[in-house]
């Protein structure tokens, strides 16, 4: 049986924790709004880009040999996994669920005898993957200093991926991130970047318009595809940022509620033992008086 002082201390410490989690939840809620707005604002660009690419790719015809970014290297021996996670913890299962998806993919690819390379964006994913895939991880990109994700943060990552592709360091590139559905639902997603996946349905409808191209189709496609990679990375990072804040908000909400429950329970125990103590003392006094 803990003493009254112990109980009091315990309640005080849970209360302090609750204040912290409550504050974190409110901060996450504010950040979530901003991240959500940013993710939404970025959508038109990505949609246009997709439409244009579908148009171009559709116009190329199925037999035309497109740029390598579109058609791939013709092999799938070496896979590059880009794992985007948060820089900070305390956001529920957010990081682990992305890592789990990436880990499963990596293991199944390795089981098929393929070579896997991992590029970590975000420290938390790196920490979790390092234990198992020390040799496969080629680099860690930290975005800790980034407050509001801008295109100029995503662009270097995209360029790096393309640089590696052009150097023949991998055949297939997949990016892992959490798609933001709602505050309580973030869906870990794997998206194939290279070879680019262009929606074929859109390509069919877009091919009807006869376009003039300046300078010419192939050149435009060759310039757009690398840019599209950067855009996709940017989008993934934005979605991830929103998901992270959403996950943090709901997990901190849970934590605050748990702390509240705990305080209630502890207070009851505290009051009971205080009462018991008083009763005991009274009994002692009374029986002492009776003995006289």
């Amino acid at each position, binding site marked *: 049986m803990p003493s009254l002082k112990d109980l009091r201390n315990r309640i005080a410490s849970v209360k302090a924790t609750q204040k912290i989690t409550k504050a974190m939840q409110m901060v996450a809620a504010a950040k979530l709004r901003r991240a959500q707005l*940013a993710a939404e*604002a*970025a959508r*038109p*660009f*990505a949609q*246009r*880009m997709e439409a*244009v690419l579908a148009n*171009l790719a559709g116009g190329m015809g199925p037999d035309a040999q497109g740029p390598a970014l579109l058609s791939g290297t013709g092999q799938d021996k070496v896979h590059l996994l880009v794992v985007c996670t948060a820089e900070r913890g305390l956001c529920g299962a957010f990081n682990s669920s992305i890592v789990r998806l990436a880990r499963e993919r990596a293991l199944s690819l390795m089981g098929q005898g393929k070579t896997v390379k991992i590029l970590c964006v975000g420290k938390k994913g790196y920490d979790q993957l390092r234990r198992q895939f020390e040799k496969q991880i080629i680099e860690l990109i930290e975005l800790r200093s980034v407050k509001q994700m*801008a*295109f100029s943060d*995503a*662009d270097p990552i995209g360029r790096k991926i393309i640089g590696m592709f052009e150097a023949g360091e991998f055949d297939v590139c997949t990016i892992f991130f959490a798609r933001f559905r709602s505050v309580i639902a973030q869906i870990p997603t794997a998206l194939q970047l290279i070879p680019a996946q262009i929606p074929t349905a859109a390509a069919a409808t877009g091919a009807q*318009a*006869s*376009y*003039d*191209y*300046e*300078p010419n189709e192939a*050149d*435009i496609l060759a*310039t*757009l595809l690398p*840019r599209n990679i950067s*855009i996709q990375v*940017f989008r993934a990072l934005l979605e991830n940022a929103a998901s992270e804040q959403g996950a943090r908000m709901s997990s901190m909400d849970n934590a605050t509620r748990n702390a509240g429950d705990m305080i209630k329970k502890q207070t009851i125990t505290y009051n009971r033992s205080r009462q018991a103590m008083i009763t005991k003392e009274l009994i002692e006094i009374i029986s002492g008086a009776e003995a006289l």
Partner: protein
Amino acid sequence: MAAFHFELVSPERLIFSGEVEQVVVPGSEGQFTVLSGHSPMMSMLRPGVVEVAGRDLSERLFVRGGFADISPTGLTILAEQAIPLAELDAAQIEKQIRAAEEDLEDAQTDETRQAAAMRLDQLRELRSALSI
């Protein structure tokens, strides 16, 4: 003049969307003007100034890296960067260019040198766009 729909989009946000009458686009092969009913076309952009004119608006924006897509429904410009010229100040840019030049000289590692060089290039493009 007949109006058509014009959109200017950057990766971060939709910068301009509305009905306009005339847009001058800095295409990679040369500047061209888009009016209503332009034939479908797609063009790369070089860093330069987009001039938008409508019934009661006229706007000049600096754009970098991207392309223009003219479809029967209107004109869309996708630019990696777009800044309204009104927000730019020649003296400010001169100052930034000087700072960037200094950065380039002081750069210790390859990475910072590259970053500084890129910044300097971008600022020079901006300056040349302004002086037009």
